[in-house]
């Protein structure tokens, strides 16, 4: 076997390792991106861009840390940088009609199939929508912190590492993010915060 063949085999191995990681974590990554960006199209763009970036810097990935911690750092930074540059994110209401480019008047934005399991049906879609919209109204740093903490279940220390800030900053971002979100939801659905409504 020539050394060239060895080199190609190494390359193949890395490629296969990366492919496997993409297959394993794509769903979770997409979910995070969806909660960050608020709509399916932007989420797909963000996930793809983040994976492309991850592949480009794959040789810097330290195998001793979980892939998703490393990947979420790329995803979050990409999101905060890129989407802040674009200015305020356009937020699209789910049931609002919009004009598609191909002249399809009155098409509604079709969201991906969510398939909630029976436990999650406790919250009806109206509420979920309010929470989702509330998330979109947060500043991007607060939203990223809240999503990482409450949807992804990371500890403050991990979030600080992912976002490249101190734990104190993470704590205040999560706290302020949750308070803003609570105020938003409370305004729409005050009954969610009445005693004994939830469980």
């Amino acid at each position, binding site marked *: 076997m*020539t050394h*060239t063949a060895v*080199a190609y085999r190494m390359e193949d191995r890395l*490629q296969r390792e990366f492919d496997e990681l993409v297959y394993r974590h*794509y769903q979770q990554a997409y979910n995070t991106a969806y909660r960050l960006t608020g709509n399916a199209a932007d989420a797909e763009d963000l996930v793809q861009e983040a994976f492309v970036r991850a592949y480009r810097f794959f040789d810097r990935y330290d195998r001793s840390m979980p892939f998703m911690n490393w990947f979420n750092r790329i995803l979050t930074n990409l999101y905060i940088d890129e989407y802040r540059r674009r200015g305020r994110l356009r937020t699209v209401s789910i049931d609002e009609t919009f004009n598609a480019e191909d002249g399809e008047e009155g098409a509604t934005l079709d969201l991906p199939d969510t398939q909630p399991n029976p436990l999650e049906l406790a919250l009806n879609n109206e509420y979920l929508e309010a929470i989702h919209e509330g998330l979109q109204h947060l500043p991007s740093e607060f939203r990223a912190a809240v999503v990482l903490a409450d949807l992804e279940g990371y*500890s403050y220390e991990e979030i600080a590492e992912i976002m490249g800030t101190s734990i104190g900053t993470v704590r205040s971002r999560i706290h302020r993010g949750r308070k803003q979100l609570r105020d938003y939801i409370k305004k729409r659905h005050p009954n969610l915060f009445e005693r004994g409504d*939830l469980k």
Partner: protein
Amino acid sequence: MNCRYVQSRLSAYLDFELSGVEQQLIRSHLEQCIECSEEFESLRRTKELLRQMPVVASRSGPEQVLLRVRQATPPPRRAIDITWRAPRWWQFAGGLALATAFMFWSRFHEGISHTQGTESSSTTNFTVSSPILNSISSPELFSSYRPNSLFWIRRSANPVTEPMLLPSVSYTDPMLGYQPVSDWNGIAAEPKMIDVSR
């Protein structure tokens, strides 16, 4: 422990991200203060609501991602570059060899420096084993020109303009599957492959 302080920490308290003492202090405060406990309750609700958010599935699968990854990027450099490191003991062996070389060198020079040294201080039986120590102890020796001390290899007067001492062929790693790129501006996406087995 006042209400303002407690309310600023409620989220961290909720996530068990405070120290044990602080956690207990806040818990005991919440038992007494109605206002703070209501605030806490609403934050707990918010977190609970967030945790019940369903996982959304995407319409396009990971294949789309892999397709874009293949199109957009060259494979990472590390994938081709097989790095070979010298074993750890080589470093020790190298250090040992250097130390031995220095010892022999200083032994070799001992006679010279000794004869030079004894002329000035013949009454003492204190001998200096190394010319470096010798030169430190006697500044007039240190400042003098000593041509045969360290440089066994002749140094050219101007090494930049005299290319004889520079290697004419750059070292090629035999484990590398391709030739090192000499022109980084005109680099192609595909590395130029050479047949190493030949």
